[in-house]
């Protein structure tokens, strides 16, 4: 039994801070959020199993409450609230709109077919790609699916807030879930309240078959990794015969493991930034005993500055409040894109020591060593940061080569492992855990200065040249283990025949 009185108590305690006392999506924290919290008064919901224009089912609402909405501020409440509390709050949320009480409203789950097999095969993906082009997905999502289509800078949601076309290479961030089934459902239902339409009419009118829509969903799914990236702490940089590749598109990179590091908005220092555009970076590293090559790639819809996005940038700056009592939003400017890689100046004296400078660009007394790259003018510099505000370039060089390709930056920094300025420039010793952190700015989202995306400290490890023993010792270890195992088994079997007892008597 759903109890809206109890539901209200849960709502006031847990939900109203974002969604507002009256359910209009205007709670105290809402102004810092993009996407904004749901406004319940219109009963318009993105994630449904019903046709575009219909109300969601109770199960649709429960899914959003239970599992949350990925890549938004909405957490999963399953485990935090009891089953009864979640049911009651769902019932209470429905009281914000008269549509739920209107018995003439038609609410029916669409008839979804099940996924046809062969979805990862070349033919299926080719068919999917054909429909991606022919039904115009690229208009918003872009040619390669990174949300950089020609219409993308004009997009607004129903409340007039700027909205990004989804980056289809990051299915783990899809609000309605990243599985092929989820994608197919979103194609059928659309995301009401956003520019994403429903494609069900196309099937009803036989412009495409249900199977073809599935192929499109399978193609979209194929753009993201099979599993959401897991964050690992250490980037392993194998040693190669050299020289290291300076180009981001060198084929060598295709054979090097890549590591995902999530970035979050810089909300510690003013002016704070709650809507980071770069959600994370992929990092690869290589060395040849003399030089390190570090490849950073990240999704960014724009090669900033881009005049087509100035209006969008202005809307973002006006929508996302920075500080609680800050100045009015800054004017949109043609900022460049930027990326910074940060190290301590020195490795700790003892390899076991874990002390590191402050992760947020060091401090006056304990600066950090950084490589900074900007898109315009295109350059890379090395220097010391003493907090967010102060950066002094060093004469020592770091080379950077970057390429922008359909919503993705690919950047390779190269630097000598050992440099003359040992006081300021980290010496990249093989076999050590070298602290490293990343920062990214998307100029066309209004990011500049302290308005940026940040990571915490991770580690870079330059692998030593592999001594032959590395290959032999595992084999030896296996043989020894096998031998010992056999002995144990023998003795156990012998025990049944009295050998163990005999052993004890010995």
């Amino acid at each position: 039994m759903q109890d809206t009185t109890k539901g209200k108590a849960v709502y006031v305690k847990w939900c109203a801070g974002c969604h507002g006392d009256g359910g209009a999506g205007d709670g105290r924290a809402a102004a810092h959020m993009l996407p904004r919290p749901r406004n319940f008064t219109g009963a318009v919901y993105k994630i449904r199993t019903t046709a575009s224009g219909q109300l969601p089912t109770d199960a649709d609402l429960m899914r959003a409450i239970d599992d949350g909405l990925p890549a938004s501020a909405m957490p999963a409440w399953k485990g935090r609230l009891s089953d009864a509390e979640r049911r009651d709050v769902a019932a209470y949320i429905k009281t914000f709109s008269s549509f739920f009480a209107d018995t003439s409203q038609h609410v029916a789950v669409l008839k979804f077919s099940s996924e046809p097999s062969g979805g990862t095969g070349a033919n299926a993906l080719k068919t999917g790609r054909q429909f991606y082009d022919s039904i115009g997905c690229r208009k918003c999502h872009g040619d390669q699916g990174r949300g950089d289509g020609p219409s993308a800078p004009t997009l607004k949601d129903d409340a007039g807030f700027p909205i990004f076309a989804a980056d289809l290479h990051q299915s783990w961030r899809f609000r309605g879930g990243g599985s092929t089934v989820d994608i197919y459902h979103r194609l059928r239902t659309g995301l009401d309240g956003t520019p994403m339409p429903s494609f069900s009419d196309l099937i009803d009118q036989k412009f495409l078959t249900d199977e073809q829509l599935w192929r499109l969903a399978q193609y979209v799914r194929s753009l993201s990794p099979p599993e959401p990236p897991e964050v690992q702490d250490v980037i392993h940089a194998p040693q190669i015969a050299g020289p290291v590749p300076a180009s981001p598109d060198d084929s060598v990179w295709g054979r090097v493991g890549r590591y995902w590091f999530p970035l979050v908005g810089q909300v510690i220092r003013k002016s704070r930034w709650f809507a980071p555009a770069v959600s994370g970076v992929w990092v690869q590293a290589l060395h040849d005993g003399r030089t390190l090559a570090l490849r950073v790639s990240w999704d960014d819809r724009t090669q900033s500055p881009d005049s087509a996005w100035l209006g969008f940038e202005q809307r973002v700056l006006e929508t996302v409040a920075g500080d609680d009592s800050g100045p009015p939003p800054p004017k949109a400017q043609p900022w460049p894109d930027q990326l910074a890689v940060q190290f301590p100046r020195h490795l700790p004296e003892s390899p076991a020591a874990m002390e590191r400078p402050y992760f947020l660009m060091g401090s006056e007394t304990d600066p950090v060593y950084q490589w900074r790259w900007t898109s315009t003018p295109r350059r890379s510099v090395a220097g010391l940061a003493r907090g967010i505000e102060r950066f002094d370039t060093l004469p020592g060089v770091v080379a950077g080569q970057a390429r922008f390709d359909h919503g993705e930056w690919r950047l390779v920094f190269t630097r000598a492992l050992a440099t003359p300025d040992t006081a300021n420039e980290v010496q990249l010793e093989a076999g050590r855990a070298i602290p490293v952190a990343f920062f990214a700015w998307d100029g066309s989202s209004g990011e500049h200065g302290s308005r940026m995306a940040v990571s915490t400290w991770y580690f870079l490890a330059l692998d030593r040249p592999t001594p032959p023993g590395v290959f032999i010792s595992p084999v030896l270890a296996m043989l020894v283990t096998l031998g010992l195992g056999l002995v144990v088994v023998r003795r156990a079997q012998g025990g049944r025949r009295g050998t163990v007892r005999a052993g004890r008597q010995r």
Partner: protein
Amino acid sequence: MGKLGVVAATGGAVLVLALAGWMRPSVPAAQGGGTISGKVKFTGAKPAMPKIDMSEEPKCKAKYTAAPPTEETVVVNANGTLANVFVYVKSGLPATYMAPAPAGPVTLDQDGCRYHPHVFGILVGQSLAIKNSDGILHNIKAKGTKNRPFNISQPAVMTSDRTFTAPEVMVPLECNVHGWMHAWLGVLPHPFFGVSGSDGSFTIKGLPPGTYTIEAWHEKYGTQTATVTVAGSETKTADFSFAAK
């Protein structure tokens, strides 16, 4: 008596039904009734409408050979009148008045990456035929608040039908692929509405006798009202005037 009684009863029933049909206000006579007509004047400087850059859509761009397309937020006619003003009976009809929806649809055409018409009306329950003549991707989003909003995709030459369940002035329609595409739909329970055309005039026909509040709605300049009383089949005039802002 028995036979005669049956005949009389049947006749009476037929008469009652006929009378009921005749008296139902929901079926205004196609001919007859009162008419309200007028012009929508425009005063002040005619605002310049931004040109639309259709270079991303060559198919649409090719349809404008004479002059480049402009936005249609304010369309001032050659005779100084204002087009695209939705004029309708806001009040004066019985509260429960609900005309049956006409069988034929109202058509909204997407042609040359613009909506035709830009401002129009429909009856509750009447079919809206949304036509894509361009054959390129349009999405049609209806952003009603009294009607359920919807958003459907049309990537080909095709027609989709939708209906609206509640009176609402106006339901905004838009295409998100082409951010300049906007249309406005007035959903009413009666057929007493008109839209000022290329000469600035509008006509509302077939009104039952009564005193009405007429509202003129413009997407940029807001609303104005007038009170008009019509009797019999007379024609009354109601002019409106909007000023540049």
